[in-house]
């Protein structure tokens, strides 16, 4: 009996202690919840501790005084209820505390994870996949190229540290390149042996003509991470968010996560958001990654694709976008694309709309494993408005090729996904969903907003709730989406010697968006409303993320003659191009058995050439064409000697005959049909040199169900000066082979041999 009494007492005491401890823990978490006002935190903590105290006293009293009644056998009904009730409250209170504490811990940890005061830079040394350089040690006496921005952490400083640590700097030749494409081109061409570059370099090149195979053509031999404190102008003060502010949202395609879990990679998707917490208005501007703008960290501030601002790190991207719209951007948020997938799944999907008129079968795009050697899946996004999962949302946001509107439409689709996410977040319900969202956010978001600032966003929500009591709150906050409108241009880059795609923004488009941004940030005065009109017959339509054309002259970017992609050309067309540009050429015939051979292509089909497409034609010394030569058509009938012979009357004529060879140059023993005609078209048996005449000797050979003909002209003239030899006439070969004449360089065929066939003339 005594033991049972003690056990019961101990149990009750333990519960009491747990109640107190859990309350203390919850109070501690609330105290650290910086987003709440201090006085509010104090009040909440006091309540928690007070309730804990009451619960503690009650259970203690229970432990000390009521036991004897229960164990006496005279079970007092009321006391049993009291015991059960007290225990129930105590346990419930413990559970509530633990739940609240765990939620706050989760929230706190997530916000602290994503709020960074330092940035991780990952630099690499890259070589061609087939290079003999396997490690850094093999770089001795080699040439290493780098992007000529020595302040760039990932593209110079960090990779350089790799060699510095090994004391190899003096053993290599470092060569600067003004342009990324020029740098990579030099590596591809073998002008240099290796390059310094960001470890996430592939996303910069995978859409550039000539480098689309970069994932398989190059490899990293060494990487290094450096963590640096961010020069943060953010004070971290919650009060800063009570006034209009701007945030740059950057979607990164992280291929190599850093060791400390921070996001690395180039920002491929850019959105500038300005928030006016006083007016409850937000505008979000989508900036296509290929937008042609001055780059803030380039010494000469020359224009380039905005995505290339990554060379100068996050700061450069932020400053470049800020310069575009004439503002200082206050904060940034980086989001890993994988995170987008996780976030959408955590929200249970988002709504997107695929124009059913333009794409009746919907859209199809590769999933995020598109460069995985193991293969990738195709993701289908149905036409119409549908709720899509994370993978679909990511594919929808990434899709570029096959869209009517190209880069602009892509940006509009990304905006649609963001809008979908915001809508789902605003209607977020269910604790499990909140936890999933926090999980997704924690792993894949990064920002220079402080944890306190992020938690203070609740005030925004409360303000809206307070003001809109009884009203629909969904339209209490206005979110406007804008798109940087521009036009597509292929601009020749002298530095990289290739034609590159750029998206050139309309000047008036930038001005228009700048005005809206400045209005929302309170940098310019808003207009007092002075007129309103509306008609039910012309319903209001709010256009979001619209592309606008502007009445302004589009910039002209003259393109010098470039080397075209000649795949599909005929041999004669390719030769004509070479001749037009005064470029010596040769032909590499591709026959069956050659790995490049493609069955079903016609004879003379140009597969390609050995020059870089869209490189400057004037810089080409010579060009080699790869041309299909089909075996069954490759027999060659040639005439021995001149195709036109001129003789004086009385001279003796000896017909030299023909040669007929197969594709390998072996003589084919075959008897041709010979027909001789005079200049009246009459068939004759011999060539007579007794009078002026012009004879045509035509040879016809049938081989493999094909007929080959070739002819020679024999001109008999009076005894006068023999005219200079007429240029060789094209033999009248009927098969579909292009004649093998007029090369400036001999093709790789066997030399002419003496005929085995002589005509019987």
């Amino acid at each position: 009996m005594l033991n049972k009494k003690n056990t019961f007492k101990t149990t009750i005491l333990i519960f009491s202690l747990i109640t107190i401890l859990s309350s203390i823990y919850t109070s501690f978490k609330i105290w650290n919840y910086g987003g709440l006002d201090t006085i509010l935190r104090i009040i909440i903590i006091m309540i928690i501790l007070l309730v804990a105290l009451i619960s503690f006293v009650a259970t203690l009293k229970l432990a000390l005084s009521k036991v004897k009644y229960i164990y006496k056998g005279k079970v007092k009904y009321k006391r049993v209820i009291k015991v059960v009730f007290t225990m129930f409250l105590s346990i419930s209170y413990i559970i509530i505390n633990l739940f609240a504490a765990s939620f706050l811990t989760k929230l706190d940890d997530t916000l602290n994870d994503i709020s960074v005061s330092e940035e991780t830079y990952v630099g690499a040394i890259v070589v061609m996949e087939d290079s003999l350089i396997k490690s850094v040690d093999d770089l001795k006496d080699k040439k290493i190229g780098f992007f000529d921005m020595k302040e760039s952490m990932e593209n110079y400083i960090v990779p350089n540290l790799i060699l510095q640590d090994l004391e190899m700097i003096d053993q290599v030749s470092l060569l600067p390149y003004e342009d990324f494409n020029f740098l990579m081109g030099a590596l591809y061409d073998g002008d240099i042996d290796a390059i310094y570059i960001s470890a996430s370099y592939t996303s910069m090149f995978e859409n550039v003509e000539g480098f689309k195979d970069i994932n398989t053509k190059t490899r990293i031999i060494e990487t290094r991470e450096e963590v640096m404190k961010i020069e943060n102008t953010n004070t971290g003060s919650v009060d800063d968010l009570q006034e209009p502010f701007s945030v740059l949202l950057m979607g990164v395609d992280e291929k190599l996560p850093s060791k400390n879990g921070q996001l690395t990679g180039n920002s491929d998707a850019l959105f500038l958001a300005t928030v006016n917490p006083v007016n409850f208005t937000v505008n979000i501007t989508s900036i296509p990654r290929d937008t042609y703008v001055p780059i803030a960290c380039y010494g000469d501030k020359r224009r380039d694709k905005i995505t290339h601002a990554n060379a100068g790190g996050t700061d450069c991207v932020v400053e470049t976008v800020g310069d575009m719209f004439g503002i200082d951007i206050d904060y940034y948020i980086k989001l890993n694309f994988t995170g987008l997938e996780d976030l959408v799944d955590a929200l249970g999907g988002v709504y997107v709309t695929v124009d059913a008129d333009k794409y009746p079968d919907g859209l199809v795009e590769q999933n995020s494993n598109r460069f995985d050697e193991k293969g990738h899946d195709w993701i289908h996004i149905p036409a119409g408005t549908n709720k899509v999962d994370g993978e679909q949302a990511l594919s929808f946001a990434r899709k570029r090729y096959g869209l009517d509107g190209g880069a602009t439409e892509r940006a509009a689709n990304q905006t649609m996904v963001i809008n979908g996410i915001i809508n789902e977040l605003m209607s977020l319900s269910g604790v499990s969903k909140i936890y999933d969202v926090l999980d997704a956010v924690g792993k894949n978001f990064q920002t220079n907003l402080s944890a306190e600032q992020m938690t203070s966003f609740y005030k925004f929500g409360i303000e809206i709730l307070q003001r809109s009591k009884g009203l629909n709150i969904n339209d209490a906050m206005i979110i406007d989406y804008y798109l940087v409108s521009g036009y597509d241009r292929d601009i020749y880059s002298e530095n990289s010697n290739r034609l590159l795609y750029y998206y050139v923004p309309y000047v008036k488009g930038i001005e228009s968006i700048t005005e809206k941004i400045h209005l929302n940030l309170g940098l310019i005065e808003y207009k007092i409303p002075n007129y309103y009109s509306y008609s039910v017959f012309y319903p209001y339509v709010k256009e979001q993320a619209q592309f606008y054309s502007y009445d302004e002259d589009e910039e002209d970017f003259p393109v010098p003659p470039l080397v075209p992609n000649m795949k599909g050309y005929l041999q004669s067309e390719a030769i004509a191009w070479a001749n037009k540009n005064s470029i010596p050429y040769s032909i590499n015939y591709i026959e069956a058995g050659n790995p490049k051979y493609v069955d079903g292509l016609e004879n003379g089909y140009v597969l390609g050439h050995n020059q870089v497409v869209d490189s400057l034609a004037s810089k080409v010394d010579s060009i080699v064409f790869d041309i299909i030569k089909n075996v069954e058509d490759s027999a060659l009938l040639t005439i021995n000697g001149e195709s036109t012979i001129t003789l004086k009357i009385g001279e003796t004529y000896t017909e030299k005959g023909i040669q007929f060879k197969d594709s390998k140059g072996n003589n084919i023993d075959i008897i041709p049909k010979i027909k001789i005609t005079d200049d009246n078209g009459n068939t004759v048996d011999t060539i007579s040199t007794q009078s002026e005449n012009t004879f045509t000797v035509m040879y016809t050979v049938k081989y493999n169900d094909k007929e080959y003909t070739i002819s020679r002209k024999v001109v008999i003239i009076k005894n006068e000066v023999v005219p200079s030899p007429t240029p060789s006439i094209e033999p009248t070969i009927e098969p579909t082979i292009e004649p093998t004449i007029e090369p400036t360089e001999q093709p790789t065929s066997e030399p002419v041999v003496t005929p085995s066939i002589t005509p019987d003339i």
Partner: protein
Amino acid sequence: MSKDKKNTVKINYKNIVILVAGIILISAVLFIGVKFLSNNGGEVPKDVIQKESSTTPYSLRSNATDYQNELYKLLEDSYKNDKNSLETAELVAMNFVADFYTLSNKTIKNDIGGAQFWYPDYRLNFRDSAINSYYFNLETMIDDFGSENLPTVTSVNVVSSNLNSSKQEYSIKLEWTYDEHELAGEIQTSASIYLLVYDTGMFISVIN
């Protein structure tokens, strides 16, 4: 004696703890409730929900101005007499103007005045239009000038009105005045409003 002393001590202890805890709890709850619900910057009307009216298909906002109350009473009387009369049409238009163009009793941009005078099918779109234009900067104006210094319509006059019986459409031309306010520049003081006749009464279809 000692037993009594013990009991007395127990009772006092319990009562004191409960009493003190109760007082603190109630105070705290009241404090948090007031802080949570009170607005930091300006006045927040206790209730902005529309008062439902049983005699008309329209309604009066619960924080209507005196003038709005007055106009609405006239509308109710006119509607009772003849819901499709010219007088009723004029009063619908006047009520709309008094509500829509009075900004002093609005606290948030989606609290659009006069939405109840538009046919229900078109209300959402009308609200969308007003939120993104006339009411777009409401909160900023409240922040800059204070609600009490925003315009309040004090009188609305009908300049002309007529009925296009073939279209079952009324056209009403109105002018109105405001009390003193701090909005710089000219603000709207006249409009033409068109109303269509429906089964339940007249609703606005166009304002320009």
